[in-house]
């Protein structure tokens, strides 16, 4: 028993002294500090975080495949030809008008390609009418737009026709279906 303890003591003593010879207390603190700071800084590195971010719920569009992007951004795929204020920033959504406004039955219709699935979708940009300009998330995109003399293909016009009020508040981007060229 005594011999065994001596053997163990000797082993531990040798290992400790070897460690003490090779390292200093300062070097340990340095490495510990580096590790702590490194761990703390890890989330700052660029990484694909979009997949883990929570997006605003899009219940009406559950049937769409590969829905990607931020519906509150001008660069969102559905907004390829939108001209106006996004209703999703104004108390509504990309499908619904804000409370207190009325959706215009007359609308500018075009197609936008969804990068999520590579398909072209028929998009209806209806103006929501009855309140003054929302002034948030102003977007001007012109894919497929034509000059003013082709009125049905121009999105600079206010499309509050057939509504009680001609005052435009914001615009929605409703998906009507998939466009397939035959």
């Amino acid at each position, binding site marked *: 028993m005594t011999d065994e303890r001596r053997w163990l003591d000797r082993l531990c003593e040798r290992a400790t002294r070897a460690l003490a010879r090779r390292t200093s207390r300062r070097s340990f603190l340095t490495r510990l500090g580096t590790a702590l700071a490194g761990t703390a800084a890890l989330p700052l590195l660029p990484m694909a975080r979009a997949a883990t971010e929570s997006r605003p719920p899009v219940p*009406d*569009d559950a*049937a*769409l*495949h590969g829905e990607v992007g931020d519906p509150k951004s001008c660069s969102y795929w559905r907004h390829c030809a939108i001209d106006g204020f996004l209703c999703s920033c104004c108390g509504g959504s990309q*499908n*619904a*008008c804000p409370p207190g406004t009325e*959706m215009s*039955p*007359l*609308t*500018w*219709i*075009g*197609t936008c390609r969804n990068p999520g699935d590579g*398909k072209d979708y*028929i998009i*209806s940009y209806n103006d929501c009418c009855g309140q003054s300009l929302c002034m948030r998330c102003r977007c001007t995109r012109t894919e497929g737009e*034509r000059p003013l003399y*082709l009125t*049905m*293909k121009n999105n600079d016009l206010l499309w509050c*026709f*057939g509504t009680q009020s001609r005052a435009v508040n914001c615009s929605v981007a*409703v*998906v*009507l*279906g*998939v*466009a*397939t*060229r*035959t």
Partner: protein
Amino acid sequence: MLAPGVAAAQGTSGPALDYAVTCQGCHRADGAGTPGTVPALAGSVGKFLRVPGGREFLVRVPGVAQAPLDDTALAAVLNWMLDRFGRDDVPKGVVPYTAEEVNQLRRRPLTDVAGARRQLVEALERTK
């Protein structure tokens, strides 16, 4: 408001797609139009074929004559529209529009659209 019919499963193509992108914005998906602003197609467009000049009128109205579609596609949309919104009104024996016919008619757009329409509607009322 819910998205009106997200038809993601089956695609829209041909004259139905051309109608959706070129006409539906004003005439609406069901052809109902907007009273006082945009004339209805449903229950109305087929009746124009019952009176002389009506067939020509449907191509010469500005929205059709100036539509950004070639003659073949425009003829297809017109025939699709008559079938979809005017099936009960189109007289028997009417032949479909052809690209050549559309090509000739759209070169002569109407200058007095409201006047031409009024005359046709009056002629229609006399046939009742």
